[in-house]
């Protein structure tokens, strides 16, 4: 691979080695401590029963004889499959819109797409209910007998939730497809449709498969929507919740959680055989120019509006409901619900902002280092790491939360970690590790290996390679990962709810408490405030990043 003998080294080898060790060791250590260890300890619980020593298969045997479990498993699979098909098609459409079209108003559409990511998940459920429930807006306006509870309600809510994640991963794959492919296709007279099939789709299949995995996994493990909109349509996630929160049977809940890992493991095997080491990017690759194309833009634009309009409608309904006196009976406008009854008022939003920033900063660095490590590692090691890095998507948040609580409540690290913001950040990072890792791994495939080798030949060290080759090619994806982690940490609930303490209450938990205590309009108002603050924070950070980038561009001469 590397045919040159390195010339004089610019960096001291000691520093270089230390840096390499740290960059490789730290993410591995973190992955082992904050994902593998809790997963193993909760996995172990599934082989035990309370009050009896020794490992046993009793929980799994009970699961096997449980009356509703086979049906719930079937429901989980069909529902998640449907969501995957829908979210993937819509995500591809939107990714094409953002990366391969000149449609106007793309920024606005991007903002709408991000809504499900910056809002607590309660908002989707509530919005769909207010809109399409039996006494929802649509029913009240048209008199139609709407009934959202069940299969289609679940599909709608989960598809809305998964859509931005699918789009971000596919967009990372579309970030750079070598423009020369398109030039060649044009010379040969291939139609745009042919080009789409043979170049765009073929070149982004890694990202597409990653998106399939993520959408399927987050859908099958989600229980927030299942509880609000599932109605009589019970899925496996209901079972986990019932066992843990309803009957305090953590061992049985763990067993169902382990069951949920199976489809993920299976799909990781399929993915592996489908992607026998596709090559890396080429050093001559340039992002494909977006040529003018009115037909294409019209199609993509209209399609995206059709996809995004329901998303916007769902969230707008919740905001509207937070502004009326008594939904749905007295629709006079009021700000009364923004005056919250919570004892600690809006301070949880600031705690959450702190947590989100910590998660996003540490998380982006760790995931980046891990992705780099996987890229350079031996195939066998890389494969193992890849599985470990993507497995978190298949673990229900509730199971992660309980696993963290039990793993870090006792033991040598407990005194340092229990009740700390740091532990919550770790929990959030590893809850959303798969998405971040897959986004970066997809983006990293565009980095030309040959250029990296060239830098090494010229005596450049790791830092040089990062600065001159890897980062310029992956910067947009790195930013996506940062904002993804930031937003998810602001709104996630299912895992961190087990880690909150009297001092560290989070915004998403506050929303849940308001809703659970019957102050639904206040919950909607609080959620709206969260959306506003996440959007404001994200915007501020974007502006900072742009300014910084400009600053550096002026100072460093263009390498390319």
């Amino acid at each position, binding site marked *: 691979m590397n045919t040159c003998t390195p010339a004089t080294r610019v960096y001291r080898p000691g520093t270089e080695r230390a840096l390499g060790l740290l960059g490789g060791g730290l993410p591995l250590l973190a992955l082992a401590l904050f994902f593998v260890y809790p997963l193993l300890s909760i996995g172990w619980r599934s082989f035990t029963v309370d009050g009896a020593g020794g490992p046993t298969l009793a929980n799994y045997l009970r699961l096997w004889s449980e009356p509703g479990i086979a049906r719930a498993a079937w429901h989980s699979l069909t529902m998640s499959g449907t969501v995957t098909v829908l979210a993937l098609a819509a995500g591809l459409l939107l990714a094409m819109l953002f990366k391969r079209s000149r449609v106007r108003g793309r920024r606005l559409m991007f903002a709408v797409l991000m809504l499900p990511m910056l809002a607590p998940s309660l908002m989707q459920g509530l919005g769909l209910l207010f809109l399409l429930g039996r*006494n929802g807006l649509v029913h009240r306006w048209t008199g139609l007998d709407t009934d959202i509870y069940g299969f289609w309600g679940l599909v709608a809510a989960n598809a809305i939730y998964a859509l931005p994640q699918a789009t971000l991963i596919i967009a990372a794959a579309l970030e750079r497809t070598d423009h020369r492919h398109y030039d060649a296709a044009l010379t040969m007279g291939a139609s745009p449709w042919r080009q789409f099939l043979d170049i765009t789709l073929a070149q982004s299949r890694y990202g597409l498969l990653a998106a399939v995995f993520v959408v399927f996994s987050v859908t099958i493990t989600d229980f927030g929507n299942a509880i609000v909109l599932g109605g009589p349509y019970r899925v496996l996630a209901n079972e986990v919740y*019932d066992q843990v929160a309803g009957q305090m049977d953590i061992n049985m809940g763990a067993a169902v959680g382990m069951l949920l890992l199976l489809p993920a493991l299976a799909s990781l095997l399929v993915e592996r055989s489908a992607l026998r080491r596709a090559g890396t990017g080429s050093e001559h690759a340039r992002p494909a120019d977006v040529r003018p194309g009115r037909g294409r833009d019209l199609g993509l634009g209209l399609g995206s509006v059709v996809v995004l309009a329901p998303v916007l409608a769902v969230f707008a309904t919740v905001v509207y409901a937070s502004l009326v006196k008594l939904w*749905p009976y007295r629709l006079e406008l009021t700000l009364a619900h923004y005056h919250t009854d*919570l*004892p600690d008022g809006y301070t949880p939003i600031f705690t959450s902002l702190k947590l989100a920033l910590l998660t996003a900063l540490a998380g982006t660095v760790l995931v980046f280092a891990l992705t780099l490590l996987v890229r350079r590692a031996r195939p066998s090691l890389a494969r193992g790491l890849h599985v470990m890095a993507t497995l978190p998507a298949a673990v229900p948040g509730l199971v992660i939360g309980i696993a963290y609580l*039990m793993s870090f409540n006792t033991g040598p690290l407990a005194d340092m970690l229990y009740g700390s913001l740091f532990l919550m950040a770790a929990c959030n990072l590893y809850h959303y590790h798969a998405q971040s890792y897959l986004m970066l791994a997809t983006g990293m495939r565009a980095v030309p290996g040959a250029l990296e080798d060239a830098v090494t030949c010229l005596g450049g060290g790791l830092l040089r390679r990062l600065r001159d080759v890897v980062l310029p090619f992956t910067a947009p994806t790195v930013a996506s990962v940062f904002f993804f982690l930031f937003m998810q940490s602001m709104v996630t609930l299912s895992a961190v709810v087990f880690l909150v303490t009297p001092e560290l209450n989070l915004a998403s938990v506050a929303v849940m*408490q308001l809703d659970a205590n*019957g102050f639904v309009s206040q919950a909607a108002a609080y959620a709206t405030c969260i959306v506003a603050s996440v959007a404001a924070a994200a915007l501020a950070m974007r502006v900072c990043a742009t300014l910084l980038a400009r600053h550096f561009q002026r100072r460093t001469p263009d390498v390319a």
Partner: protein
Amino acid sequence: MRVLTRVAIALVLGLFVGVHACAGTITVYTALENDEVSLYLAAAHKALPDVHVRVLRLSTGDLAARLVAEAGHPRNDVVWGEALTDMLDPRIAGQLQPLHLANVAHFPSRFRDPAGRWFAPTGYVSALCVNTPALAAAHLPMPHSWRDLTKPIYKGQVVMPDPQSSGTGYMMIAGILHGLGQARGWALLKALSGNVAQYTASGSRPCKLARTGEYPIGVSFAFVAMQAIKQGFPVQMVIPSDHVGYELEASGLMKGARNAADARRFLAWTASSQAAALYRHYKSIVAVSAAPSAGEIHDGLPAHLMQHLEPIDFAASARQRAAVIERWKRDVGH
């Protein structure tokens, strides 16, 4: 450089490592609602100005799961207002230490444990939330009892909490089984289930669905029904006239309490008559003053509520829960 790194590490650790309890501070886990907790704590602070109460508020199920998961190293001094059926689970009850408070001694016997591990100053009863416009739109008569709800006219119009995940769901079933006996009880539950449109994960959700008119009838508990009426929803509360289930909200002192003295003082306050006067704002069942207030009677709470309640043996009810849920899943549930 090295010094700087050390300082930075120390700073980061200092920022993110949790604060440790100091003298006069107690940690309380509670399943009571936020707004009532604020009211009680303000009053408790006046009575015990030197005690700082750290409160963690969780839903009944999450709190029980947390107590079980933290059993290896409990982090709280007090459990305050957790559903008694959960509290009696050996994995939680085993973590409590006996406590004999003067204030509790004069509670009626069903509100305290003879062994002193728990006492319950308050409780709540099953109640129907009936949305009157939705009921009228579906041309249905007002239901008054569980038996009424088994009539075919209510098919698809009733929402109930799922006993697999909700203590409220289980308490309703326990009340019916206790009152009617096994055979007739299960028959009634089966007939009732035929009319249920959906089972919800939480106990307050049926009432929330009913109050916005999603369904005409939601089976919940009195607290949420009265809250819906207070907030202005067109809801009427009905306490079923036959075999109404109820749950007690129990408190106790943890075995490993780090500040047992102050924890004891706080618990004694929650059992005081001063606290009982406040409970009346929220609770349908108060141990020391059994009669409901005029406002509550106006909202639909029977004047002689205590006579209506089945003498439920909570210890037995907690023991049988797994078996009852098992049977419910096989014979009744969707």
